[in-house]
């Protein structure tokens, strides 16, 4: 892909829109420092990559680069943009990037929004077609790691650079990535191994452990042997651990029995306790109260039942003596009998309803009993966690003696925890007593039929208090648990020391935790092995980079470097790339070495030995070589200020590098602050017929850019004249003459237009039809216009010859005559001299 034109508005140094037309071979742009020259290359970079290398290098998150793309003078309501016509595969594409409010680039291809440029797809690793002065020395005069990154980027190996950095970072401290369960496991195992290590009687075991995972089998065999030495002969394998435990317990119990630790609440257990707390209270609050209230009807149950019984007996008696009351002897008439029967039926129905109520009472009482049992169980399970440590309260003086002055902190931890634990336990026990009393009171109201909702409320309140007390107990036990656990370990150790059972204790620990020990060694082995992984990645990538830099890149860079060096240069030069090596000869990771020689002798390094100008030249050559290497969609190269700190000879040498690049098909956009040198480039590459711009000023509107003719009309005429008269001129020379003619025609036609219509046309953008139209509008003789038109007949608008094209000296002479005629027209109009340099700004007609 090549660039045809670039328009920039509101971006970096450009405020008002300006368009730069780019020659298909060479475009030179001159500007003094700070006149917006670099904004042009940055605009192109941003258009292609949505970020400039300056911002990319500086880390975009830095505040000082925030909002750096937008021109400060550009109206806030407008959207800055960069637009380019890019020629790709024989087609022109209008590519536009608009700066959004959040500083991102929104891309449009021929007016349609897109995510990425389709012609760059598959070329993410391709070298960017920008050689920027600030980047040249950065590549060489950088830290070793930055230099490696720079070369990796140049060689399209950025992914490998990242791969290596990622693995280095991971392998440097892999232990920080251990999951919590592994950390805890390793800590436990290390404590046991540490104690084993301190036992002089267990050296065979610790020796085997020191071999790591491979020594584990031997270590466990040694553990079994040591255990057998300590238990009675004939002890079976299964009985070894109980036997050791008994030996130890018998010995230490003589000094102290009991524990000073509390049982730890496991995470799941804590969650279950929280649920149980809630359940205790909700059982009472939700259904219980409603059921309890409904039992109020029980008060009348016995009356109802007696009434039903009375009517039932009466009814039966009335069957034998229907006219007289069996109880009072009163006479009973038919209406009274009906009344008695109705009452009997109602009393029986009420009796049935009462039996439902009685069932409900049973349920309520059962619930109360369940709540009572749950509350007791809840409390019991909390108390069980600390019962052993509370027992120790009676033996504090003995404990103090065992801990001694050495472990007084542990003793104090126990001594200070005990009253607190006792207090919360007492609080919980009291709360439980209140619950029991309230439940008892409620049961009594049910039994006595004296239902009182206040008793149920008391049960609820008591349960809430119990739940809170249990919660407080859990909180305290959890907070003191680590200190008490440590104290217990120290106590156990001191007891073992006093009882002479240290080795037995260690052996118990070892045979109780074989899986933990094994897992610990396996995890340790995994951690250790990351060193080998790092070495593997380092060596593999170092070798890939070495292959890339020492072969092709060195040869390519050398060939470009040879073109820049002059015959008068001292023989102190770059001599190739390499990777640094260790004393053993293995490659050092991320260490690119730049070699140099002085008259055949190796120097310490190019970076430390070469002059700044040579380093600059070397950086330039590396960038050029990288740009021509590998697959790339770019057929253009933007070079920004390449010749800093060079002498005149080297500046001249670089012109041949430019010619070489152009001959290889590269479209060059060269920006420089060195006007003299650009004049030299223009003269040296005269036949290239590129385009030349000068930025002559800068203000809030942006740079003032003008186009300067590549060559004067007289110079071109002389060139054509020389070709027509040179009988040895070959077809290439004659074709060059035709190109000169067409450039002359366009330039003279543009001049005529300027004189006649005061309209500036860009001669670089003219073709046969546009010239005809212009000349017609300027009143030029039709016959001359036809003849002029003929000069375009053998090539297309881009001066490319058709396949059947054959250079013809006679035809060139004819064309020369037509141009001379056109020059006479210009001469006639040229009575008043026009401006030689015309600003590009505000010239929409130039397109």
């Amino acid at each position, binding site marked *: 892909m090549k660039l045809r034109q670039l328009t920039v508005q509101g971006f970096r140094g450009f405020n008002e829109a300006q368009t730069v037309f780019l020659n298909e071979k060479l475009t030179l742009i001159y500007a003094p420092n700070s006149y917006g020259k670099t904004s042009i290359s940055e605009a192109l970079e941003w258009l292609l990559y949505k970020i400039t290398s300056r911002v990319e290098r500086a880390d975009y998150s830095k505040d000082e680069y925030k909002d750096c793309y937008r021109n400060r003078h550009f109206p806030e309501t407008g959207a800055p943009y960069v637009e380019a016509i890019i020629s790709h595969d024989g087609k022109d594409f209008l590519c536009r990037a608009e700066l959004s409010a959040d500083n991102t680039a929104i891309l449009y291809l021929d007016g349609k929004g897109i995510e990425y440029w389709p012609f760059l797809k598959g070329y*993410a690793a391709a070298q960017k077609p920008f050689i920027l002065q600030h980047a040249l020395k950065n590549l060489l005069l950088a830290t070793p790691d930055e230099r490696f990154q720079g070369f990796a980027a140049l060689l399209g190996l950025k992914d490998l650079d990242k791969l290596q950095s990622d693995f280095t*970072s991971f392998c440097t401290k892999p232990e920080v990535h251990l*999951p919590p369960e*592994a950390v805890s*496991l390793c800590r436990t195992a290390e404590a046991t191994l540490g104690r084993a290590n301190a036992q002089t009687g267990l050296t065979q075991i610790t020796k085997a452990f020191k071999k790591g995972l491979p020594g584990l089998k031997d270590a466990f065999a040694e553990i079994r042997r040591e255990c057998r030495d300590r238990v009675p002969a004939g002890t079976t394998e299964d009985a070894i651990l109980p036997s050791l435990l008994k030996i130890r317990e018998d010995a230490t119990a003589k000094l102290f029995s009991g524990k000073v630790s509390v049982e730890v609440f496991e995470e799941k257990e804590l969650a279950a306790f929280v649920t149980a707390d809630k359940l205790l209270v909700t059982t009472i609050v939700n259904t219980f109260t409603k059921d309890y209230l409904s039992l109020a009807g029980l008060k009348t149950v016995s009356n109802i039942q007696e009434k039903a019984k009375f009517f039932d007996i009466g009814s039966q008696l009335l069957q034998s003596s229907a006219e007289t009351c069996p109880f009072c002897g009163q006479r009973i008439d038919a209406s009274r009998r009906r009344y008695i029967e109705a009452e009997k039926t109602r009393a029986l129905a009420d009796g049935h309803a009462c039996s439902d109520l009685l069932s409900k009472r049973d349920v309520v009482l059962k619930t109360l009993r369940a709540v009572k049992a749950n509350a007791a169980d809840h409390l019991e399970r909390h108390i069980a966690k600390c019962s052993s440590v509370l027992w120790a309260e009676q033996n504090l003086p003995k404990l103090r003696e065992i801990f001694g002055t050495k472990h007084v902190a542990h003793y104090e931890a126990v001594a200070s925890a005990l009253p607190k634990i006792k207090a919360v336990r007492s609080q919980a026990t009291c709360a439980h007593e209140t619950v029991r009393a309230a439940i008892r009171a409620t049961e009594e109201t049910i039994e006595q039929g004296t239902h009182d909702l206040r008793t149920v409320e008391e049960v609820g309140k008591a349960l809430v208090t119990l739940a809170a007390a249990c919660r407080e107990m859990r909180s305290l036990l959890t907070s003191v648990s680590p200190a008490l656990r440590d104290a217990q370990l120290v106590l156990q150790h001191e007891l073992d020391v006093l009882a002479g059972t240290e080795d037995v204790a260690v052996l118990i620990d070892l045979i109780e935790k074989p899986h933990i020990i094994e*897992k610990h060694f396996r995890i340790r082995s995994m951690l250790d092995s990351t060193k*080998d*992984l790092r070495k*593997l990645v380092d060596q593999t990538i170092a070798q890939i980079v070495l292959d890339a830099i020492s072969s092709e890149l060195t040869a390519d860079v050398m060939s470009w470097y040879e073109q820049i060096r002059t015959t008068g240069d001292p023989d102190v030069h770059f001599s190739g790339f390499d990777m640094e090596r260790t004393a053993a000869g293995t490659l050092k990771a991320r260490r690119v070495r730049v070699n140099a020689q002085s008259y055949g002798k190796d120097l310490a390094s190019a970076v430390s030995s070469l002059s700044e100008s040579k380093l600059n030249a070397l950086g330039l050559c590396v960038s050029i070589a990288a740009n021509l290497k590998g697959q790339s969609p770019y057929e253009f190269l933007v070079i920004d200020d390449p010749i800093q700190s060079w002498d005149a000879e080297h500046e001249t040498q670089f012109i041949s590098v430019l010619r070489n690049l152009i001959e290889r098909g590269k479209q060059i956009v060269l920006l420089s602050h060195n006007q003299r040198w650009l004049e030299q480039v223009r003269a040296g590459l005269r036949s290239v017929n590129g385009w030349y711009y000068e930025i002559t000023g800068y203000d809030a509107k942006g740079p003032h850019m003008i186009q300067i003719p590549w060559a004067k009309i007289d110079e071109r005429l002389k060139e054509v004249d020389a070709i027509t008269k040179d009988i040895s001129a070959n077809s290439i020379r004659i074709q060059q003459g035709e190109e000169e003619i067409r450039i002359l025609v366009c330039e003279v036609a543009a001049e005529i237009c300027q004189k006649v219509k005061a309209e500036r046309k860009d001669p670089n953008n003219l073709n046969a039809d546009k010239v005809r139209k212009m000349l017609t509008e300027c009143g030029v003789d039709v016959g001359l216009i036809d003849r002029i038109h003929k000069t375009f007949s053998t090539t297309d608008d881009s001066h490319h010859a058709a396949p059947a094209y054959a250079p013809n000296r006679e035809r060139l002479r004819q064309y020369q005559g037509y141009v001379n005629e056109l020059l006479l027209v210009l001469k006639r109009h040229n009575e008043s001299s026009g401006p030689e340099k015309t600003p590009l700004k505000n010239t929409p007609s130039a397109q």
Partner: protein
Amino acid sequence: MADAVTTGQEGKQKTKLEEVLEKLTLSADNPLHKRLIQAYKGSDPQSAVVSEFSKSVSEVARGET
């Protein structure tokens, strides 16, 4: 913005990174290393490696391997 550069190999399009990861996998003797190298993929490959390492260690800690 665009895919990485690919190189043709046995009819498949592989990126340079994929080629190197494959080479590393073949060169690695340690199964854990193979596993970690193969985990290097996705938008955050470093985290993927760390995650795979933690997973491998967890399997050992839980006695799953």
